[in-house]
């Protein structure tokens, strides 16, 4: 353990540690992460529980479903740019290692590779960072995961925090972050991030460290108690379901409830709220949970058979507002068509390559790493080639125009495609609704029952 390590500087006593203004590197990283997140996801919703999310030294703990996507999202969304504590294998990948160093990542060695490379250096670096008032981030499960629940969490986060505290760093907070993917392997999908209430270590230390015992990371009892607390808080923030079928059903049940309450049922529901409700449903007693999930699933199946979605069905697909929105989609799609074609000409090849990568057989969590990596490389290369080609044909001016317009065409093709799909689905739903005209009342009654079931399980 790093206790008493002479290499460790004891800067400590950061009672007045104020978040320093972001450095240039932080601003650049944040901007890049935000732009990528905007491109990859259709929607990102963040819920912040009460509590101070920006001040002081902090250890963020997050669930790890999405591989590479998880840290990217958190770098964009957390109040301050975190330094990532991660397995040293990442540093062995070419380029990735340099990127991690540039981001200020801190490598952890697996216990079995110990020996000449012990983790003392990691602990010392983490204590120093916390003493400087930094934000650290760790995925305490230690592995990416394909089930929608939290794996038994490791003790690293608790040991780092207790160690830093016994080296004189105060005001540390542990902040749980739960990442909820709608579909983690899909492009332009939605994701919500729940930032749970931070654990204030100074205020609660007596709950973990018995009086008169060693307050440091070698106190096994304290480490276990704090780890249990982190486990509980992370479970509250992150998805914690029996399986994906249950996760989907309860999430959709939550969505139906929100839609029943919304002024305009065709508007997308606030997904951070939806996922919080689904989390509550997931903590309902087993039998109630099962009944609710079954009710939602059966209602969904009947709607799907008619080509309907809950939002379309609820709207009745009539009314000026509803038709006005469809008309707006149509006008927008037509106006964007020429630019969307330009976007398609530039991007069809990298798009197909990334699609093909998606067909390879990997576990979803691995895919969630490989696909964005492939996308960055292939799209980047294509755009680079396009700029070069424009330079060859039209000189510097052409190249500059290409740099300016490639992102515009990309946005155009994305928006156009999404609007076109929306219109096509509306048409299908309209047909389904006409066919189901005589079933409308029955379906509406069933929907009411399902929503009542959801409410009772909350």
């Amino acid at each position: 353990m790093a206790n008493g390590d002479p290499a460790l500087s004891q800067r400590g006593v950061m009672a007045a540690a104020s978040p320093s203004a972001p450095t240039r590197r932080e601003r650049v990283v944040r901007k890049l992460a935000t732009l990528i997140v905007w491109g990859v996801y259709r929607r990102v919703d963040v819920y912040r529980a009460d509590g101070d999310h920006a001040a002081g030294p902090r250890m963020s703990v997050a669930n790890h479903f999405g591989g590479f996507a998880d840290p990217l999202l958190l770098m964009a969304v957390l109040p301050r740019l975190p330094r990532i504590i991660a397995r040293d294998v990442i540093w062995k990948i070419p380029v990735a290692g340099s990127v991690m160093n540039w981001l200020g990542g801190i490598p952890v060695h697996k216990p079995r590779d110990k020996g000449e490379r012990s983790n003392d250096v990691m602990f010392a670096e983490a204590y120093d960072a916390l003493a400087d008032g930094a934000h650290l981030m760790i995925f305490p499960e230690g592995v990416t995961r394909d089930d929608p629940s939290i794996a038994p969490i490791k003790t690293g986060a608790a040991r780092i925090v207790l160690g830093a505290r016994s080296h004189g760093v105060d005001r540390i907070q542990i902040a749980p972050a739960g990442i909820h993917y709608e579909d983690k392997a899909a492009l332009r999908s939605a994701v919500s991030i729940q930032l749970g209430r931070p654990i204030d270590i100074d205020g609660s230390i007596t709950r973990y460290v018995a009086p008169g015992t060693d307050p440091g990371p070698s106190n096994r009892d304290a480490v276990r108690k704090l780890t249990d607390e982190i486990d509980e808080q992370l479970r509250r923030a992150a998805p914690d379901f029996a399986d994906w079928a249950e996760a989907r059903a309860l999430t959709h049940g939550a969505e139906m409830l929100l839609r029943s309450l919304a002024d305009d049922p065709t508007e997308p529901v606030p997904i951070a709220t939806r996922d919080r409700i689904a989390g509550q449903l997931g903590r309902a007693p087993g039998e109630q949970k099962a009944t609710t999930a079954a009710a939602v699933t059966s209602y969904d199946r009947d709607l799907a058979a008619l080509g309907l979605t809950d939002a379309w069905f609820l709207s009745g697909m009539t009314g000026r507002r509803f038709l006005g929105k469809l008309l707006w989609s149509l006008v927008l799609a037509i106006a964007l068509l020429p630019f969307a074609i330009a976007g398609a000409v530039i991007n069809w090849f990298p798009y197909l390559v990334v699609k093909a990568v998606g067909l390879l057989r990997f576990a979803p969590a691995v895919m969630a790493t490989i696909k964005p990596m492939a996308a960055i490389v292939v799209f980047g290369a294509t755009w680079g080639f396009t700029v070069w080609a424009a330079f060859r044909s039209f000189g510097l001016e052409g190249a500059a125009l290409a740099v300016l317009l490639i992102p515009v065409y990309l946005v155009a093709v994305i928006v156009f495609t999404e609007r076109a799909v929306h219109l096509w689905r509306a048409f299908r739903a309209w047909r389904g609704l006409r066919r189901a005209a005589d079933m409308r009342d029955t379906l509406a009654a069933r929907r009411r029952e399902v929503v009542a079931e959801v409410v009772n399980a909350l």
Partner: protein
Amino acid sequence: MNDVTLLEAVVVAIPALILIGYTLVDVVRRPDLTGPRKAAWLIVAVIPVIGTILYLLARPLSPARWGSAPSGARVARFVEMLERRERGDLPKHEFVAATHQLLDQDRL
């Protein structure tokens, strides 16, 4: 530029002009840019295309608003009750009853 058709010109010119215009307006209107820095960026921004690119690259992102507001009074009311329930300030049966009541003002 030779052999450029009208359509190609339109596809290039319209978005380029929109971006150049947006950049100029943005430099003028940004409240965090003042005095000599604003003047300097204005000089950069009037250089078409290259100045536009430089400005758009350097411009800080507007603070990202991650997330959407609840749509409507009933959702807001429900979220408030959910928060109280999570904090343990609202017993389960009261929460369930109040939510059913909210839903009874439902259209379907």
